[in-house]
């Protein structure tokens, strides 16, 4: 069923796989894709077209497992069509930011805020919020002054 265009599995760590993947994207300009029906297998170049035709799966630098994890952490779920476009755009961004690896950053500390801020904390004094009613008015569902959500405990 599968032709000789397929590239066999490498059991690499995720970070290694991504690095390798971007390397191919950036350096060789070669397309790469995964096929969810063939776990741990990647396709390159024209082999992608075959894979795409077979299952409508996109060219991706991200594994299906990573996709699942990303969507779970972000609490978003994309339709298959959206996923194709998103994978392409994330791939572009990842190729773009890979240029940062050129910089000599040894000994440079991370910069989290652009100004040095003195750690001044305000006095620990309770204040009354100006309008509790106005605050709760924006909630989708309120009962007895509390936010209502579906049951979060197991029956």
């Amino acid at each position, binding site marked *: 069923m599968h032709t000789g265009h397929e590239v066999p599995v490498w059991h690499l760590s995720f970070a290694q796989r991504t690095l390798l993947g971007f390397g191919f994207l950036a350096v060789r300009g070669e397309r790469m894709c995964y096929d969810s029906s063939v776990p741990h297998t990647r396709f390159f170049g024209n082999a992608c077209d075959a894979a795409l035709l077979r299952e409508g799966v996109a060219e991706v630098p991200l594994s299906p497992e990573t996709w699942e994890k990303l969507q779970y*952490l972000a609490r978003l779920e994309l339709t298959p069509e959206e996923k194709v476009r998103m994978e392409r*755009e994330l791939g572009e961004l990842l190729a773009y930011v890979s240029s940062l690896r050129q*910089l000599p950053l040894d000994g440079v500390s991370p910069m989290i805020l*652009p100004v040095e801020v003195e750690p001044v904390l305000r006095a620990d004094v309770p204040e009354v919020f100006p309008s509790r009613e106005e605050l709760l008015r924006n909630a989708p569902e309120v009962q007895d002054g509390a936010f209502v959500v*579906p049951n979060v405990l197991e029956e």
Partner: protein
Amino acid sequence: MDEISVLAWRSRIASGEAVPEDVARYYLEAIAARDPEIHAFLLVREEVREEARNLKVEDRDALPFFGIPVAVKDNFLTRGVRTTAGSRMLETYVPPVDATAWEHLAHGGALLLGKTNLDEFAMGVSTETSAFGPTRNPWDPARRSGGSSGGSAAAVAAGLSPLALGSDTGGSVRQPAAYTGIVGFKPTYGLISRYGLIPMAASLDTVGVFSRTVVDAAYAFVHIAGSDPKDPTSFGKLPPTFADRLAELRRLAYPARAERLRALLSRGVSGTKVALVREFFGGGVSPEVRGVVEAAARRMEELGARVEYVSVPELELAGAVYAVVMSAEAASHLGRFDGVRFGLRVPAENVDALYVRTRNRGFGWEAKRRILFGTYVTLSESFVDLYERALRARRFLASRLETIFADYDFLLGPTTPTTAPTLGAAGDQGPVVELTQDLLTIPANLAGLPAVSVPAGRGSDGMPVGLQIVGPRYSDLDVLAFAFAWEEARPPEARPPFGGKAAAPSPWEGGNGR
């Protein structure tokens, strides 16, 4: 003198030539006539008429913004007035508090004229990601007004408001100001409280102002700057000379404050050292934009500034640093939209499904992409290679810029690579192409530097070109002084309005409701 600047109105109010009600009526009429085409506003407040009437005449001299209507970007919370951030997620959200920046203006006598359009959660370069449709450029409705603060920029450029608040994370004030031929000022990070500004990327977000003149921008900046216990990043320790000057100005009421400010800004450019950054004139910059900005630099040279070219090749990487840092922060900030406490809720049988369905429907494409990319770069597997590397690169770039400021007072360059592009192209562009629109403005956000875009002239298409002036931290008033010197010195053909279809400021004919 611009007839519809803040200080022009303020002076007519002070002399009794106009009362606040006249000013409110003037702008409501201008909006009714012009905004259906431009779509700068998401909400217009007819209530300003009554609020103008209710101002007490005895407050006229004490309040610096007495009776001045202000347009506010719709990502600033305004108590009791719907605030959407351009998103379906907040379509019916009515904040219970005011953003500090707006509150300062309100306490100064300003009136909330309306809320302006923006890209969803300020994520975009054209207002085309707004859930409520794009804003058109007043000079040419087929073009973008820029973004994300495109509504605020268009409102001021078209004469629909004398002043507007915006937010600038990667250029969202300066870029639309350049596209619409007005002044857009982004102060040093931390000088204006971000409390009540719906965050996109907290370490980059800066409150900014749009105005028709440099003095107006400075007048507004001085009034809204200052530390705020509600924003821990506004607690930065200011250099004493700058802190004293700010405090001195803030103690003065109208008209003394305006006079003192004008005197401070009128110091000229003689002896000023200016660096033209080669990378700001790179391949993506159109020849005509380059020509206009180089002509401006030559003019400043004639007036006594020393202008030299410098090169900072690493600045080419600013977009990549920005993409990683901004997305990581945005993904984190947007976590609060879960359908529980405020905003949209799509009901579901369990709480996990509720989160997912709400976010699927509430967020637009751009927001989803930034959330997913930001989530990706902070995964434990990619954190060191992508997120932490970008934070190191950020310090690297910031220190490179600092080195330049050891030898020069300002960096000078174009604000944008081209004049305003046409609307409708955004859908075909990839995320990287969009980043290039902000490439010249991003470095100031990464390093927290003050920067202003001031009209410099126009391209062969008749559209405005912006000149960007960037200074070291806390040189805000110096940056504005340099912009003021250019504003005074620029040749007639470089002065807005340049023609096109923007409403020319009409001479004042009202007064006391006659």
